């Protein structure tokens, strides 16, 4: 894939603290994982790219406008059915009631939840709720799907299911930009790793290379701590 996003000297300062510090980056891989220790600024970087936060300095330059969707660590479900939660996202983008319903059902089927479509979303298990959130994002057919630690609070079985869905969305052609604390997952999903440390990009490396021999000491320390 050619470069789809160029991040130019991006900075975010909040209350005198530099959370993102002069980040420059070109993203061209279809599946990029952002790794780094807690508080490194991974989630903040994703939010800046998604437009939920405004940078204090620098800019994002999109090679072409990409439709986006984001999945958060904790799925946010409205007090209605699973189906209506998916329909809600579609309606905001504007589609007829019939079309919204059809696409929402299709998305729920993709994540294996068609039988739970009419269940109250908030009473589903954590893993099921995250799959509804994925369906809600998937139904929008985004060109870029951003995921902020989507499996952080899930059990291993649910994590694998979420991972399968992410891979399937990627197989449909969407770009994936994601953070995770699960290095096995990073290895399975990513093409390229962006390693970030204290708000700065430490390195940007193809996945195989990163796990064999990271270039920077910070990433080496990180891998050693996370994978004894």
């Amino acid at each position, binding site marked *: 894939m050619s470069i789809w996003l160029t991040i130019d000297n991006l900075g975010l300062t909040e209350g005198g603290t530099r959370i993102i510090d002069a980040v420059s980056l070109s993203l061209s891989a279809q599946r990029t994982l952002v790794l780094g220790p807690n508080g490194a600024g991974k989630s903040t970087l994703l939010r800046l790219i998604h437009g939920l936060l405004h940078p204090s300095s620098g800019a994002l330059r999109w090679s072409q406008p990409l439709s986006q969707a984001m999945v958060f660590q904790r799925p946010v479900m409205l007090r209605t059915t699973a189906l209506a939660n998916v329909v809600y996202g579609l309606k*905001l983008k504007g589609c007829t009631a019939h079309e919204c319903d059809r696409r929402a059902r299709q998305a729920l089927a993709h994540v294996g939840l068609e039988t739970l479509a009419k269940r109250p979303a*908030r009473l589903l298990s954590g893993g099921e709720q995250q799959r509804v959130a994925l369906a809600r994002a998937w139904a929008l057919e985004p060109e870029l799907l951003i995921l902020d630690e989507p499996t952080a609070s899930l059990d291993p079985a649910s994590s694998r299911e979420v991972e399968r869905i992410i891979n399937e969305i990627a197989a449909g052609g969407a770009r994936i930009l994601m953070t995770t604390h699960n290095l096995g997952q990073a290895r399975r999903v990513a093409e390229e790793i962006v390693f970030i440390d204290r708000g700065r990009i430490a390195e940007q490396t193809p996945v195989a290379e990163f796990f064999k021999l990271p270039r920077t000491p910070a990433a080496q320390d990180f891998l050693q701590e996370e994978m004894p």
Partner: protein
Amino acid sequence: MHEFNEPLITAWQLVAAADERLAGIVLLSLRVSLAATLIACIVGMPIGALLAVGRFPGRRVLIVLFNGLMGLPPVVVGLLIYLMLSRAGPLGAFGLLFSPEAMIIAQAVLVTPIVAALTRQVIADEWSEYREQLRSLGASRTRAAATLLWDGRFSLSTAALAGFGRAIAEVGAVMIVGGNIDGVTRVMTTTIALETSKGDLPLALALGFILIAVVLAINAVAYALRGWAERHWG
């Protein structure tokens, strides 16, 4: 003790016999306060939601204002509405003074800030949870406010309830704009005040019991509704 027991018994007899005069007073009370609460919810809930979600100049001032107006003295509201509705006032042409409609207006004015302020708190809590997701999906702030009002509908019953409790229990505003006219604008609280001052304790007591019972019953229903909603929708 005897002085207390006898009115108590008479009061109970009035309630048990579903005394016509008593029933009229109770129904008028309910009609006025329910209508006022309904209006207050229609006006106050969107205001509260927009105060929680919106971003506009003067928002903080409005929040402080509405919180402050929660403690609005009923007699002052009554006086202001009286001035508006009196023949020489700006709304005098409608001839509403000393009518149930005037009482509804006064109570709606009294209760709207309560509903708005409580709604703002409920929606602000929801907003902190939903904010990123709703913005990610592309919801405008107005749309987000509407979504959160619907999503928080069961929690918001508390705001409506607080408003109704205030309306049904107040005496100052309805007394001034209604005039406490027998059979026309006499409600439970104004009757209690009047009959007590006249020394007719049984009717006052009977109304007191009913007032408490109504408030308790409505709270119980709302509590049950919230419990059901939480089990059903999470």
